[in-house]
């Protein structure tokens, strides 16, 4: 079902829960993988996904379709992930540890990882990027999103996003050259 139809259904009397369940069916997995690329751990990704969907439920009534439904959902998920990472980094700093190292360790020990060494190394390089730059790189590289859509999600200009992606790309290339 198209997003427009889902929203129309949501606005019918007594159909809110049903329509929202359809939205969850359509987008929850996609949002999960977006979040997972940001935070590395399944448990953290699960918590953030639940918060994202709850926020979407609370605010869907006020959604005026000024942006598309999927970019709106991505925006909530990205903001939730960035907030989570900010808190986690602060906590790690207070306990004198390196959160980027923790993310790498999580990847190394991930029971749900079934890729080869190149894929592991590549994912490690992505996790080394600054959080917002990682969000830009993930949406562009893995999800093939247009810069205009990413701009809607992050509220950043297309030019700044292109520059950010270029920097991320260079960092990853350099990391791979050093480690392979």
């Amino acid at each position, binding site marked *: 079902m198209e997003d427009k139809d889902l929203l129309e259904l949501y606005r019918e009397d007594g159909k809110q829960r049903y329509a929202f369940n359809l939205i969850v069916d359509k987008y929850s997995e996609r949002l999960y993988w977006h979040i997972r690329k940001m935070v590395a751990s*399944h448990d953290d990704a699960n918590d953030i996904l639940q918060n994202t969907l709850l926020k979407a439920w*609370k605010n869907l009534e006020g959604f005026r379709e000024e942006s598309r439904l999927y970019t709106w959902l991505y925006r909530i998920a990205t903001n939730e992930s960035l907030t989570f990472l900010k808190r986690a980094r602060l906590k790690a700093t207070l306990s004198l540890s390196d959160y980027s190292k923790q993310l790498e360790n999580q990847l190394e020990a991930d029971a*749900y990882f079934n890729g080869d060494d190149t894929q592991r190394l590549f994912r490690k390089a992505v996790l080394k990027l600054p959080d917002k730059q990682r969000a830009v790189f993930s949406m562009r590289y*893995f999800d093939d999103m247009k810069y205009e859509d990413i701009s809607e999600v992050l509220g950043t200009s297309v030019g700044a996003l292109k520059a950010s992606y270029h920097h991320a*790309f260079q960092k990853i290339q350099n990391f791979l050259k050093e480690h392979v």
Partner: protein
Amino acid sequence: MKTRFDIEDPLFKNHLKENPFTLPHNYIEGVKESLSGKIEEQSKKVGLWTILKPQLSLVTAFAIVFAVAYGIFGLSGGSLPTTKKSSLQVMSSGQMPYIEEGFLKTSFIDFFDSSTDSLSAKHNDISQEELLDYINQNVDLVTLSYLEMRD
């Protein structure tokens, strides 16, 4: 060598883009169930808040009005005494008795105004002869001689 590390190279990119992670069995179904529970819980919380919200806002409004009024009276009570107290002291020591006296006098005049007094009006109607008759009949000789002596 360069092509091997070019992450934008189509072949390499396809391999890197492959999702190397798996999900726990029935994870997405679990998310939906857990989410439904949380939404249910939230709607109950929202119900309670909806009931309490108007009452709390009313109480808050009263509290603000009371605080503002209390603040205004408190401030004016604290700033006025230096000037007003002194004038009150002057009045209470010197002027107040006169004012009170004047007030009482005025009150007396208001209450016993001869023009409106029916007894005084009657008194004006009594003639000289009637008065002498009354004295002759009711006042004894001793009293009359005493009155003559006084004059």
